[in-house]
């Protein structure tokens, strides 16, 4: 024992009644404690729910845009489709179909102006009803090139028609041109999600 520590006194103190709070106090405190931090977890849950909703929404929209499996998308206004990129692909498809070599000047002419491009056929795949599988190696090479091209090359000249964008996206998907499809979809979302606000 020292002047500040008395083991016998400590022992006696240990024998005093060990009162505890009532159950009601426990409930009040624990409820408050959980409520205080539930916001953090709730935020995370809400975040996941929002992400899941977005994924589902985009997936569903995609399904609707693509139409039933095996049915080729048909543009309501094929002439209104004016995708700059297809110029090469049209050529490629033509070459694939005819086997004739296309002159570079033909391609150049197609790129000359927006007016030219508006007159150009719509999505080549839709226009000719051909598929990537039907095209020869030259076509595949042309399609492959599109993966490296900047997105703005694929954008429609007339951006106002939703149908035109949707048809172009569907056409790109059918053609297996995921890069072009992604570019078109991004631009479509930029244009029409903005206009909806």
């Amino acid at each position, binding site marked *: 024992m020292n002047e500040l520590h008395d083991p016998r006194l400590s022992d*006696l*103190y240990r024998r005093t009644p060990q009162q505890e709070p009532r159950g*009601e106090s426990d409930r009040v405190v624990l409820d408050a404690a959980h409520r205080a*931090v539930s916001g953090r977890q709730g935020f995370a849950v809400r975040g996941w729910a929002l992400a899941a909703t977005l994924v589902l929404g985009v997936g569903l929209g995609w399904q609707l845009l693509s139409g039933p499996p095996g049915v080729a998308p048909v543009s309501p206004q094929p002439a209104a489709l004016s995708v700059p990129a297809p110029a090469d692909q049209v050529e490629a498809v033509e070459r694939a179909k005819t086997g004739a070599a296309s002159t570079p000047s033909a391609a150049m002419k197609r790129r000359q102006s927006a007016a030219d491009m508006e007159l150009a056929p719509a999505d080549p795949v839709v226009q000719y009803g051909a598929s990537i599988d039907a095209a020869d190696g030259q076509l595949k090479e042309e399609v492959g090139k599109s993966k490296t091209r900047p997105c703005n090359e694929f954008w429609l000249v007339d951006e106002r028609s939703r149908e035109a964008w949707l048809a172009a996206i569907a056409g790109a998907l059918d053609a297996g041109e995921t890069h072009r499809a992604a570019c078109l979809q991004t631009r479509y979302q930029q244009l029409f999600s903005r206009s909806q606000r």
Partner: protein
Amino acid sequence: MTEPDEQLMMRYREGDGAAFDTLYRRHRGPVFRYIQRLSHTGEDVESLYQDAWMRVIRAREQWDPTQPFRPWLYRIAHNRVVDAWRSARGVEIAGGEALDDAVEPSPGVDAMQLLRDCVERLMGLLAKLPEAQRSAFLLKEEAGLTLAQIGEVTGVERETVKSRLRYALKRLRDGLEGCDE
């Protein structure tokens, strides 16, 4: 292995409610008894106790993880009781008053009865200790804090804590005469 208080508190701050449950179970009894034995008769101990924990919950972001949790917890509990004293009588905590006459030991009883009497006397003596001395004693015995930590909780120097404890122990020993056997 028992998870340290500090780790549990860190987890709670990060949103783990279960960590708080463990922390609460560990300290509920001692904190309750500290508040109960430091409070004056007639004060709503349950309400003070709940309030103290509410303050812990609200101030969780203010707790410094580099500091031990227990002194912080008891400082909050102590301050809650002090606030109740102040609002009840509008004065500062008394430093040390004379102890009333100690309870007389009950003569002629067996060992168990003697022990019960001694415990009862201790409770009576404790209740009559000046608040500062009672607080120092309870923080040492109930919360297991060091002298320095008691100083942190009550806002005084270590030497003052020593002095308060010394007086408290003397009064208790004097009042518990006959309980040594």
